[in-house]
């Protein structure tokens, strides 16, 4: 079987709208889903869950969210960390105020609350663009972190100023707290990733996605074909923040368990997710995954090589890690500004013609 569309004729517009128009892609996708749900949970251990899979899954959600805003709608944001913090604190308040509520709904509602906050901070985008908008979202970032530090109500007046996730279970499997198992944490996040990626794909392929991209590519022309800039930009902020809020809620409750806002959701977090989106590829859901995988795996890999393999001291390795990741980002921006997703597309385009290149 060759990798191509020919011989696989589309006779209906429905078929032409498929997410994976090429059969092999489709099969590969099903295989990955099957492995992710049916195989990984049985083999995953604490190290892989905590160091790789759980942060990868959660940050993928954040990256998809940011990609919707920047990659699809063209609105720059440096406030990702702050919006993740909104999700985290919303989740904490919900978990502690309504102990009976399922953790699943806590996370979901946290996303909803973050969406509202996102819309609020998205309002300036109606007036300002590009660099100035980035600065405005940066202000949101600092304001939100400051707010969660300053107002004790948000951390239930705890002496440490930290928030700690109480234990919660889904179908009797603990997913939060120190006793949660690797497999249940992983699966809980995977379910969110699966649903949210599917929603992102649906939103970006129809009316809503085209309005976003129209605003991104040329806002004047978009308005003249009937796109309402107000509604469109705010909907991008809402959806994007919904995703990022869920990522923040999971990051706090499932991954970290205890959070000090400045540390977990500071400006570094904003930049990390931004780099994921840029390295992965703007305007690509696959790219969001690729970027998240790259930036989660790369430090783990480097650490294993430098500390485990070469026996260097950890602190030197940690510094070098920064240098190497930074260097790679610069390298990427120069060599392939459209990111990993574009490299993947180019490889596939070659493959589609193979073995007859002309």
């Amino acid at each position: 079987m060759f990798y191509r569309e020919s011989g696989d004729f589309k006779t209906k517009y429905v078929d032409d709208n498929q997410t994976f128009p090429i059969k092999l892609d489709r099969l590969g996708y099903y295989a990955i889903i099957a492995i992710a749900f049916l195989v990984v949970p049985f083999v995953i251990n604490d190290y892989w869950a905590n160091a790789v899979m759980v942060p990868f899954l959660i940050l993928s959600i954040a990256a998809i969210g940011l990609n919707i805003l920047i990659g699809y709608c063209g609105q720059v944001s440096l406030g990702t960390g702050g919006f993740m913090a909104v999700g985290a604190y919303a989740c904490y308040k919900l978990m502690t105020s309504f102990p009976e509520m399922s953790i699943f709904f806590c996370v979901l509602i946290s996303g909803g609350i973050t969406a509202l906050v996102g819309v609020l901070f998205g309002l300036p985008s109606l007036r300002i663009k590009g660099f100035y908008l980035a600065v405005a979202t940066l202000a949101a970032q600092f304001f939100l972190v400051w707010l969660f530090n300053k107002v004790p109500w948000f951390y239930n007046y705890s002496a440490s100023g930290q928030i700690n996730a109480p234990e919660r279970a889904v179908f009797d499997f603990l997913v939060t707290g120190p006793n949660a198992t690797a497999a249940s944490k992983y699966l809980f996040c995977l379910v969110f990733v699966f649903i949210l990626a599917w929603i992102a794909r649906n939103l970006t392929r129809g009316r809503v996605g085209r309005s976003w991209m129209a605003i991104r590519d040329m806002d004047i022309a978009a308005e003249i074909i009937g796109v309402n800039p107000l509604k469109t930009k705010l909907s991008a902020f809402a959806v994007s923040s919904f995703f990022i809020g869920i990522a923040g809620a999971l990051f706090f409750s499932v991954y970290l368990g205890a959070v000090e806002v400045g540390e977990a959701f500071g400006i570094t977090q904003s930049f990390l997710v931004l780099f994921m989106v840029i390295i992965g590829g703007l305007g690509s859901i696959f790219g969001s995954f690729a970027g998240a995988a790259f930036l989660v795996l790369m430090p783990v890999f480097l650490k294993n090589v430098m500390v485990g393999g070469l026996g260097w001291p950890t602190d030197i390795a940690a510094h070098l890690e920064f240098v190497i990741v930074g260097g790679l980002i610069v390298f990427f921006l120069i060599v392939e500004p459209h990111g990993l997703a574009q490299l993947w597309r180019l490889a596939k385009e070659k493959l589609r013609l193979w073995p007859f290149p002309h």
Partner: protein
Amino acid sequence: MAAQNATTEPSSKAPIMEMKNITLRFGGVTAIENISFDIREGEVRAIIGPNGAGKSSMLNVINGFYHPQEGEIWFRGAQRQSSRPHEIAKQGVARTFQNIALFKGMSTLDNIMSGRLNKMNSNMLAQAVWWGPARNEEIRHREAVEKVIDFLEIQHIRKTPVGRLPYGLQKRVELGRALAAEPKMLLLDEPMAGMNVEEKEDMSRFILDVNNEFGTTIVLIEHDMSVVMDISDRVVVLDYGKKIGDGNPDEVRSDQAVIDAYLGVSHDD
């Protein structure tokens, strides 16, 4: 190309739009000065004039992108209050731009599909789960868009990102995006600028076909006088923001003021 005179008699139709004493200023510059004219239902109305005469500004006034300081605009029997361009688009006014304004990151198909955005209304939730209404809406509009693609003979570039297309085809895709909205009134700002003779003939044919088949009213800015004389029913002539001529092509061609101000002037394109 004279066919439209036989099939429709635009001169007998009522105006679809009336511009009354429009004045538009940018700071000290008066781009349009006290201009009145009407556009009749189903006609091809050309706007001509030298560079900087105020033609594009006039289109921008028509579709609500600029708001004139003085004057009234009557559209389909009602005086238009100052509205945003996206609201005017919903009332059935579509346009193309002098400098191509396509969505560079999208394919031909998506660009033309986006022309139907103001006809689509499935809600966010249905979109998110790609449930019945969202899916059906997409397919229904895809069918309409495929008709536009066939009409403009651009089937072969359906999936090509528009940035990769040559200039002439980009202009055609932009026309497609405007047509996809099924407008009552279509504003074309120099649709043939920079085209070779063959491409111009294709474009003229498309414009006349749209006018004849769908009865779309067309407002056309064009520098190529032979094209203007060929395809338009009536011509407005602007110069330095003032109207200096108005009538059918023959009248305008023989008008001394027009000859002095415009036809004698050479143009770089």
